C-alpha cells in the first residue's frame, strides 16, 4: 500500500496540477490500508492462538467452569450472546415461519436475564446458559445416552445418538437446551448442528479441544471491558476462577436441587 502511494506520488510529479491530488490519494490509500488491517487483525489474532488439536482423551483431572459476577454484568449489553451466536453459527439461520414463532423456536445457548427482587426492588443482570451440573438431570433422563457429561465436566449432546425426544429439555432446571426446529444450512465446520436434535452451551468444546484458552462469551465480555465472566479449571486451586471463588461469595442457581453446577454466580 505504501509503495503504491509513493509510486503514484512519484509518477505524478511531472504534472503539477495533480500533485495535491496525489498527496490526498496517498493519504487515503494509507488510511484505507491501515483501517482494513485493523478490521481484519482481531479475527486473525483470535484464530492464530495455538492450534493444537487434542490427541489424548480428556480426563477428569480438570473440571471446566464459569464464574459470573453479576455486579459487572451490564444492563442492555449482549456481547456474550452475540459472540456465542457467531462462534457457533447460531446467527446463520433464517426463520422459516413467522417472526413470533421464530422468537420461541430459535436456538439460544446463552441469554441475558434481568431480574428484580420482589421485596427490595434491586435489579440484577446475568447471563444464563447450561450450568454443566455434576449431577445433570438431562443426562439422567436421556433414553439413548446422547446427553452426557464428558470426563472434564462439560455436559453436552452427542448428536449422533440424539433421537430428538426432548425429554432432556423437559428435565433441565435451567431451561438451557434448545431443539432445532428447522433444517440448517451453512453450518460451521467446527460446530455441526442439524434439524431434529437438541443442543446447548458446550463451553465452546471445539475451542477446548483445539487448545484455545477460553470461551467466546468470556472473550467478548472481556473485550467489552466488563469481565463479568471468568472461565477456568475448577479443580486447579491456582486458576483464576478458583482464586476468585475463594475471594467473593458465590452460589449455584437453584442450589436446593444440589446439582453441583460448574457455573457459579456472585451477587444474585
Amino acid at each position, binding site marked *: 500500500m505504501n509503495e503504491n502511494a509513493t509510486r503514484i506520488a512519484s509518477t505524478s510529479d511531472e504534472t503539477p496540477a495533480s500533485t495535491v491530488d496525489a498527496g490526498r490519494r496517498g493519504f487515503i490509500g494509507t488510511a484505507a490500508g491501515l483501517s482494513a488491517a485493523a478490521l481484519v487483525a482481531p479475527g486473525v489474532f483470535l484464530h492464530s492462538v495455538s492450534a493444537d488439536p487434542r490427541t489424548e482423551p480428556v480426563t477428569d483431572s480438570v473440571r471446566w467452569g464459569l464464574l459470573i459476577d453479576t455486579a459487572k454484568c451490564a444492563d442492555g449489553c449482549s456481547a456474550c450472546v452475540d459472540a456465542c451466536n457467531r462462534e457457533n453459527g447460531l446467527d446463520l439461520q433464517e426463520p422459516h415461519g413467522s417472526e413470533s414463532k421464530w*422468537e420461541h423456536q430459535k436456538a439460544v445457548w446463552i*441469554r*441475558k436475564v434481568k431480574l428484580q427482587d420482589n421485596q427490595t426492588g434491586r435489579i440484577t443482570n446475568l447471563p444464563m446458559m447450561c450450568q454443566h451440573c455434576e449431577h445433570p438431570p438431562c443426562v439422567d433422563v436421556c*433414553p439413548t445416552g446422547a446427553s452426557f457429561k464428558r470426563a472434564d465436566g462439560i455436559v453436552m449432546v452427542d448428536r449422533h445418538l440424539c433421537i430428538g425426544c426432548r425429554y432432556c429439555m423437559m428435565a433441565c*432446571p435451567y431451561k438451557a437446551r434448545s*431443539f432445532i426446529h*428447522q433444517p440448517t444450512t451453512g453450518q460451521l465446520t467446527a460446530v455441526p448442528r442439524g434439524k*431434529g436434535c437438541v443442543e446447548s452451551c458446550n463451553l465452546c468444546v471445539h475451542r477446548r479441544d483445539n487448545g484455545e484458552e477460553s470461551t467466546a462469551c468470556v472473550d467478548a465480555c472481556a473485550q467489552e471491558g466488563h469481565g463479568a465472566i471468568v472461565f477456568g479449571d475448577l479443580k486447579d486451586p491456582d486458576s483464576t476462577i478458583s482464586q476468585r471463588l475463594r475471594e467473593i461469595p458465590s452460589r449455584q442457581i437453584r442450589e436446593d436441587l444440589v446439582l453441583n453446577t460448574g457455573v457459579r454466580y456472585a451477587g444474585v
Partner: protein
Amino acid sequence: MKRVVYREWRIPPERYWSLLGFLAALIGIAALSFGYMEHQGHWVSGMNNSVVWGTPHVFAVFLIIAASGALNIASIGTVFKKPIYKPLGRLSGLLAVAMLMGGLLVLVMDLGRPERLIVAMTNYNFSSIFAWNIFLYTGFMAIVIAYLWSMADRQGGPFNYPIGILALVWRLALTTGTGSIFGFLVARQAYDAAILGPMFVALSFAYGLAVFMLVLMFGFEEEGRPIGPRMMRRLRNLLALFIGIALYFTLIYHLTNLYMAKHDSLEHWLLLSGGIYTVLFWVGWILVGSLAPMWILYHPALSQKREWIIGACALVIVGGFSAMYVIIIGSQAFPMAMFPGHTILESGFADGVNGAAAPYWPTIPEILLGIGGVAVALLITAVGVRVLQFMPESLADDVVAPDEETLDAAPFAKPA
C-alpha cells in the same frame, strides 16, 4: 354357569368396510402430516423451546394410560376371579394392545429424528425412565398377547391365572412408569412429585374403562348383541368408582401444592389466572370429566338409559384429554422457578417475563398426528374383532354369570 360363546363381529360388509375406510383415511392423513412435519421440521408445529411436548404427547399419553386401564377388566376377571367379567377379558386385551400401539406410534412420529428409532432400540441409558418404558411397553404387548392366548386357547387355560397376575403387575409398573416420566423431573414446579405415578394409575383405570365401555357398547349395538342391565350396572358403578378415585388423587395433589408456599404461584396460576389452562382444569377435567359423569352414573333415572351412559363415557374421555393437556402442556407453559422471590423483567429465552406463561397453541399437523394414533388403535380393534373371536355373543342377564347379591336388592330368583 353358562358357557360363554365368542363370535366374530358380523356387521354387514358395507358397513364394516366403510368403517375401515374411514379409519384408514384418518391414518393416511396422519401419515401425510407426519411426512410434512418430519420433512419441514418441527417449526410447523406449535411446539417451541419452552413448550417442548405438545398435542401429540397429549394424545400419546392418553392412549398409553387408557391402554393400561383397558386391561383392568381382564384382570378383574382373571386375577380377582369375578366370573361376570370373564366374557369381557378378550376384548379388554385386544383394546389394550391396540391403544398402546396407537400411542407409541404417535410418540415415534413426533420424534425429532424418527429414522433413529433403531438407535433408541439399541442404545440404552438405564437411569432414564424412558429407556425403561421401552421395555415396559414392548413387554406389555408380548404379555398381553400371551394373556389373550391363555384366555382363548384351551391349552392355555392353566396359564391364564399366572399370566394374568404378571399382566396386572406389569401394567401397574408401566402406568407408574408413565406417571414417573413427569414425577421424576425436579425442574418444574408442577412435576417433582411422587404422587404422579399412582395418580396416573388411578387416571388409567377411569380412562381405560370409559374407552372400553364405548367400544363394547358400539360393537354390540351395531350387531344387535344384547348387554343386560346387570352387566351395565357393574360397568357403570365401576366407572363411577374409578372416576372418584382419580378425583381423590387430583385433590390430594393440588391440596398439597396449595399448602406449600413454594408451589403457591403455580397453583394460583393454574386454578385462577392461567387462561386456557384454568378453563381446561375446572371445566374440562373437574366439571365435564369427573363431576358430570359421576352425577350421570349415580343418577337413579339417567343411569338406566344407554345413551346417557355413552355420554358419560364420552365426557370422561374429554376430561382425560383436558387432564393430559393441563398436566403436560400447562406445566411446561408455567415459567420455571429459577429465581425464587424475584420477578424476571427481561429474558432472551422466554423465561417467564413478569410471570407470563410460555405461548403454545395446538396446530393442525399435531392434531392430525394424534388423531392418527387413535385411528390406528381403532383399526386394530375393528380388524381384530372381525377376524377373530374376541367379543362374547351375548351379555344378557340370563347368560352372564351370577354376581353377588346386594343388601338392598330384591331377592334374586335364579333361572331354572
